[in-house]
């Protein structure tokens, strides 16, 4: 017994266009100890199954990936309640970009941003990341399952908390000395 042979026209093209976008989002969204690639492949499998019935596949697949990320996070927390994930279980993030690997100062900044994102509630985290990726408020609302006004609130609070966290004196000195944000180019 397999999947019924329904047409899946356009799935390959959709996957080709959005797979990198989803993987980058999930890598930023998830904390340590969660395999972003595993989560994404799970979401794509489900999208493949449901493809003929999907009306807004982009929002749908992101929403499923967020659900799977929550489940994976719960399992990671259950497995390691103290939060200390053994080195053997940590997921190594392969560097797949064609641009050069960031230096130490970038690594410190990225680490700060990741820590700051993990402190946000999931709706705020997702809203901040999706907004930064250029999603419209309506699209973000479809992913989060709320109204555009609520999305605006999540964005305002999420960005505000992240800005304050990144500007905290306890965070700034951890970065490489003399490396302010002003001198960096994205």
């Amino acid at each position: 017994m397999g999947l019924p042979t329904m047409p899946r026209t356009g799935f390959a093209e959709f996957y080709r266009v959005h797979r990198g976008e989803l993987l980058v989002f999930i890598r930023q969204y998830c904390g340590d100890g969660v395999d972003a690639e595993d989560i994404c492949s799970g979401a794509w499998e489900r999208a493949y199954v449901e493809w003929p019935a999907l009306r807004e596949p982009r929002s749908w697949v992101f929403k499923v990936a967020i659900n799977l990320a929550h489940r994976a996070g719960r399992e990671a927390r259950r497995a390691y309640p103290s939060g200390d994930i053994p080195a053997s279980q940590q997921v190594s993030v392969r560097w797949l970009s064609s641009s050069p690997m960031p230096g130490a100062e970038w690594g410190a900044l990225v680490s700060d941003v990741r820590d700051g994102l993990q402190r946000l509630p999931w709706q705020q985290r997702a809203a901040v990341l999706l907004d930064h990726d250029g999603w419209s408020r309506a699209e973000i609302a479809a992913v989060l399952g709320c109204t555009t006004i609520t999305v605006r609130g999540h964005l305002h609070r999420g960005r505000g908390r992240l800005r304050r966290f990144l500007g905290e004196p306890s965070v700034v000195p951890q970065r490489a000395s003399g490396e302010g944000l002003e001198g960096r180019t994205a």
Partner: protein
Amino acid sequence: MMWLPRRGISNDELDKALAASRRHAAFTDSPAGADRQVQDELRMIAIRANCAASRAPDDLRPMRHHPMLWKTAWGVAAACIAVVAVGAIGAGAFHALRASGQPGSMSALMAGMAAIVSSWVIGTLLLLSANGIKSLDRYLTGMRARRQHGHDHGKGFGNPGAEEGSRLGDTVTG
């Protein structure tokens, strides 16, 4: 009102920081072999989706103690303890007031205690019924599927993923 500057970085700086984070997590295919890689991944997705759809009953994973069942049990126990505690306090107060000989205060106290207990019980039952029915439904679905396929290996097995195929992505799991 005195204006106080807000701590933190500016919006531009935050955008730069997010862009750096995004670049760090970026996925850029190397031009050579990218198409083949996508084709391989698509093939793998189709295979795994087919495997999931055709999973035999023998492959059913053992069901762990369902957290919702435990939550329900703890909720019932907590509600019972709360009702007993409120009842004990009420009985104590009732006896104290009866000894003092003020019937008006006593009836007011009884009415108040009855209102508290009943609202507590009703609220708890409403919460528990939602959670309990959901968890029991999932548990019984697994039991039924196993029995239909003649693979009843005894206690502790079920099909936690039985409903997954029909509700994927519809709800935030948790």
